């Protein structure tokens, strides 16, 4: 590890920290319907959208109404993308004349983008028309992110409201998240990315002759407009297969820094929104602190593993960090940081091949995702995932002060525990069971490129990533019918089987009487609470996966040190 490497991480973190409050404040105003800078321009647009769609913005929804809207909206957009991918051959903006996608791949891709996963079993530059990229994928990048933010807002409202049983209006939250937050940032930063060299055109790919005398195809297309929302919405689906490792998506260290920032910033700001809406910003900073600690622990492990390099390579007389599968312009530190950031959140954009990381370097992204991506997390999903852990922590540890547990003064009782544990069950079931099926069935093993623990890691990573709606891949695993369908279902369940209990949890908390805070009540913003929260996340969230992780990355790490590879 080098001082420069650490400096990058620390400066990066400080910038996130600096942006959390102002952005959080702005988002609080947006979702409370207060006036903001953009109001003069956007309020008429917003009103027009409501008039056009017949939405009554003042109508509030109970949790099941909210959940129904989320599900209905997602179903419609899923069908829309599926149809688009299956008919792109006959639609405009297809200069490369790509064929329609196969049904199972189209299903996998449609689910992938609708669920904010952006798992890519396809190669963008060789299968997708520009129309599919823009009107299909980029559109989902916006609305799936906005839907996530909307759900987070609904959950926050449920936690804080002491009267009424409603959680807000999904259509209003969706519209405001897109209009006031995602769109302005995308336009501004998107143009900046283009200024740094990211292509933005409708031209066909160019074939050039290099100095070496060979022919090379340079992909083009509307990349800039999709790149920005790919990070900001923690989507992660690259325009091209190489994702942010490609110079077309991520031309310079500066864009690399900006892209990482975009991935984390909304998730970080949402902690402030939570504290602000709870009328006690310490509540938000407590979550931020827990997230920051997990962030640095994760980064340290990856960076240490990558910087230490591969002992087998060292034996060949090549000293230094592990640079296999990394862009040398980013190096070990920026690649480690990107890998941490992208799996702390549900982004899944990559600027290096996680498959080529050292075993421990690859373990951290897996663990990050297995925790449910609650370290700042996917836009919205990180916060509601964290709140589920907060409820569990409050319940387990809150009893220790000699009172029945309370969160923001509200009693955590049977129903709250029921929904929280229901949500907590989803990740272990959806990661471990399909991995088990794949590990012992011919269909699961057929397209596995590596054997032994590394092969196991690849399967585990695939189901962990799709369940967590991350979308980054360990590579080494090629698509087939089994994986297309299984990972598709996994993405679908991984998203909605958490959203529904999270909303139900919020629904039971909404309108609950809050008990006054006093010397006898458990504070959910003390350092002890932050430590407990991390403890519960690690013991309840991560230990479940220890056997599986032990058989994958952990044992691989031990074996590589003994000189064995796979």
């Amino acid at each position: 590890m080098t001082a420069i490497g650490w400096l990058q991480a620390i400066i990066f973190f400080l910038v996130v920290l600096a942006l959390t409050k102002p952005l959080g404040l702005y988002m609080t105003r947006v979702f409370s319907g207060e006036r903001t800078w953009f109001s003069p321009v956007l309020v008429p647009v917003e009103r027009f959208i409501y008039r056009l769609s017949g939405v009554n913005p003042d109508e509030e929804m109970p949790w099941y109404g909210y959940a129904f809207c989320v599900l209905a909206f997602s179903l419609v957009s899923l069908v829309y993308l599926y149809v688009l991918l299956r008919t792109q051959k006959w639609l405009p903006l297809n200069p490369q004349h790509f064929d329609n996608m196969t049904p199972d791949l189209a299903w996998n891709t449609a689910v992938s983008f609708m669920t904010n996963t952006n798992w890519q079993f396809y190669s963008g530059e060789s299968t997708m028309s520009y129309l599919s990229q823009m009107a299909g994928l980029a559109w989902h990048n916006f609305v799936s992110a906005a839907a996530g933010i909307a759900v987070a807002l609904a959950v926050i409202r449920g936690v804080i409201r002491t009267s009424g049983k409603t959680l807000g209006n999904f259509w209003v939250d969706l519209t405001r998240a897109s209009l006031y937050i995602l769109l302005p940032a995308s336009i501004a930063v998107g143009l900046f990315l283009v200024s740094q060299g990211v292509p933005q055109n409708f031209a066909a790919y160019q074939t050039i002759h290099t100095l070496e005398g060979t022919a090379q195809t340079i992909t083009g297309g509307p990349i800039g407009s999709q790149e920005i929302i790919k990070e900001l919405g923690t989507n992660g689906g690259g325009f091209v297969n190489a994702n942010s490792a490609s110079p077309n998506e991520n031309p310079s260290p500066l864009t690399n820094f900006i892209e990482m920032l975009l991935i984390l910033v909304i998730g970080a700001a949402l902690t402030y929104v939570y504290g602000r809406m709870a009328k006690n910003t310490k509540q938000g900073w407590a979550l931020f602190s827990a997230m920051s600690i997990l962030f640095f622990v994760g980064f340290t492990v990856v960076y240490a593993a990558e910087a230490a390099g591969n002992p087998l390579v060292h034996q060949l007389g090549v000293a230094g960090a592990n640079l296999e599968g990394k862009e040398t312009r980013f190096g070990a530190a920026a690649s480690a940081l990107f890998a941490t950031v992208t799996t702390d959140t549900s982004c899944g954009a990559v600027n290096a091949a996680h498959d080529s990381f050292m075993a421990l370097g690859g373990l951290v992204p897996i663990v990050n995702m297995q925790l449910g991506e609650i370290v700042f997390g996917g836009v919205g999903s990180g916060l509601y995932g964290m709140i589920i852990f907060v409820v569990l922590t409050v319940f387990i540890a809150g009893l220790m002060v000699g009172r029945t547990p309370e969160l923001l003064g509200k009693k955590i009782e049977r129903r709250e525990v029921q929904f929280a544990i229901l949500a907590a069950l989803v990740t272990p079931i959806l990661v471990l069971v399909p991995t088990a099926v794949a590990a012992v069935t011919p269909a699961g093993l057929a397209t596995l490129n590596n054997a032994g623990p590394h092969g196991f890691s690849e399967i585990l990573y695939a189901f962990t990533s799709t369940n967590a709606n991350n979308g980054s891949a360990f590579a080494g695993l090629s698509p087939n019918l089994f994986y297309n369908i299984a990972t598709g279902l996994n993405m679908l369940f991984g998203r909605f089987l958490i959203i529904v209990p999270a909303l139900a949890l919020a629904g039971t908390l909404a309108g609950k009487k809050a008990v006054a805070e006093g010397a006898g009540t458990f504070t959910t913003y003390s350092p002890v609470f932050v430590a407990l929260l991390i403890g519960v996340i690690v013991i309840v969230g991560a230990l479940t996966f220890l056997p599986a992780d032990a058989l994958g990355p952990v044992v691989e790490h031990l074996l590589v040190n003994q000189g064995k590879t796979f």
Partner: protein
Amino acid sequence: MLSQRRLERRPKARSLWDRTIVTRAVGDSFKKLDPRWMMRNPVMFIVEVGAVVTTFFFLRDVISHGGSAGFDFAISAWLWFTVLFANFAEAVAEGRGKAQADFLRRTKSDTMARRVSANAIETVPSSDLRKGDIVEVSANEVIPGDGDVVSGAAMVDESAITGESAPVVREAGGDRSSVTGGTRVLSDTIRISITANPGETFLDRMIGLVEGAARQKTPNEIALSILLSGLTIIFLIAVATLLPYSIYAGTRQTLPVLIALLVCLIPTTIGGLLSAIGIAGMDRVMQRNVLAMSGRAVEAAGDVDTLLLDKTGTITLGNRQATEVIPAAGVDGGEAMHVAYLSSLPDETPEGRSIVLLADASGQVDGKLPEGSQFVPFSAYTRMSGVDLPDGTKVRKGAPDAVLAWVREAGGTPSTDLSAQVERIARAGGTPLLLAKNQTVVGVIYLKDILKPNMRDRFDRLRAMGIRTVMITGDNPLTAAAIAGEAGVDDFLAEATPEAKMALIKREQNSGRLVAMTGDGTNDAPALAQADVGVAMNSGTQAAKEAANMVDLDSDPTKLIEIVEIGKQLLMTRGSLTTFSIANDVAKYFAILPAMFTVAYPAMSALNIMRLSTPQSAILSAVIFNALIIIALIPLALRGVKYVPKGANAVLRENVLIYGLGGIVVPFIGIKLIDLLLAALHLT
């Protein structure tokens, strides 16, 4: 023949490790193996299923002379122990209650009753009595059922119910009218209106409660059970999927090994002790001679934010004492004392008697009331009492404004020179009683409230726990403020009426606080019902007892503070053991995982950080630790964790350190020690 046998006194305390209790508990732990019973506790049910399966594997090994019979036997035996230990914990917790219930059942045996009807008295068995019947009970007879005294007064021995040997007075009217079936009248004859049908009496309810037959899981217990079941499902999946993973890794694991891992991971420690903790909490309340009508009430006591405490009997000793008689200007000190003496001679109230004592001690008075004197008792309307002497002299003592009004009515013009004294006494927390003789005010009596010892200290402790204390008193605000200040309560409600008390409870509740109170009178009933925790005095009326969710058999209002502490302790014990149980998993993973996979991946032994001797010993040590920790924690579960009243954050820090961090460290040490022992004994 009316029952005249002597009643035994109900034994209050019995050691937890009483021989009979333990013997019975051992038997009960086997009876509780019945799967229908075990189903109530999903965590332990899984362990039982695991024990059955491993036993089956052991038998199969024996028949087929399989190689791992010894290992499978050890695992299955320790799994059975795990279940039995958990059942034993529950059985011991129930033991004391069962012993109490046996005693109470003997008390309940049928007696005969004299039922009074319009024209006759007939003798019927007590089981024939119905609500509304009137019965007559004389000295040395057992009261045949719960009821209210409708006429007469009697000394009643209630030791069969309360365990207290001192007899109590029960009389018609007022707040001491209720009697309990099974208690014995010592003197006089009373008539009682029966208020409960057979099978619904206080004694029946009490038997049900102490025995735990009517025990239902409390809301918090249900929520915790859901959490534990959820965790069990998660670990079930983690372990079940290990089978295919191990097949992929080429080192297929046997079912007994997987079951051993599963049992170690699921929260058996808290799962096995959960119901024992709840029963023991109820039992601790019972040991304090308080009958909680539900476990829910004890749980709610832990959440209380505001305690409403009656001044009299809780904060101060029941009776005020006269300490001084101050003569008015121009009145001789002896004269004032004499008037005080005369007005109080026939007054049987504690205050009246204390005045007589003070006067006697002063040596300034003597003699008795002349024949034909008329006593004028205190009434809420006149707010004074006194004596009309045969010579036409009238002496009165009472509330200053009432006495002044009386003097004016008699045509006198009372001097106001005593008003400063009255003010001074009230300000100091005392009660001024103005003395008047015919048309003149002759002096003022200083009645002093005597604070119970150590109350300030208790209120300080409550404050540290975050509980506000509010003193309820009928005194005027000035007096109330002084006593409140002296006792150290946070707030007070002066000139309290039942309505004001009710309004205060509702106000506190609306601002998000849970309220506890004690009461005994019928007019307390609505407030007792409204409060989150209402403790009725056993000496109180039937209405109060019915409205409350706890009854204090000792009728000691200070008990409320202890009840709150028990409630908190109960919740803390639950939380601490849950944390401990979950934290234990870290060590168990490190014991069992390397043991499972070092054969396939020798490099895995790096994870064997405890350096356990063999894979078999590692697994067995973890299982043994897991079983023994239940036994080791039974005393803690039954006694409750150490409880020191202080702020929530301090308590949390301490418990996280002991049970959270301790929960991570202890099993590492325990498993290592068991492994060393197994290796030393060549058992693996």
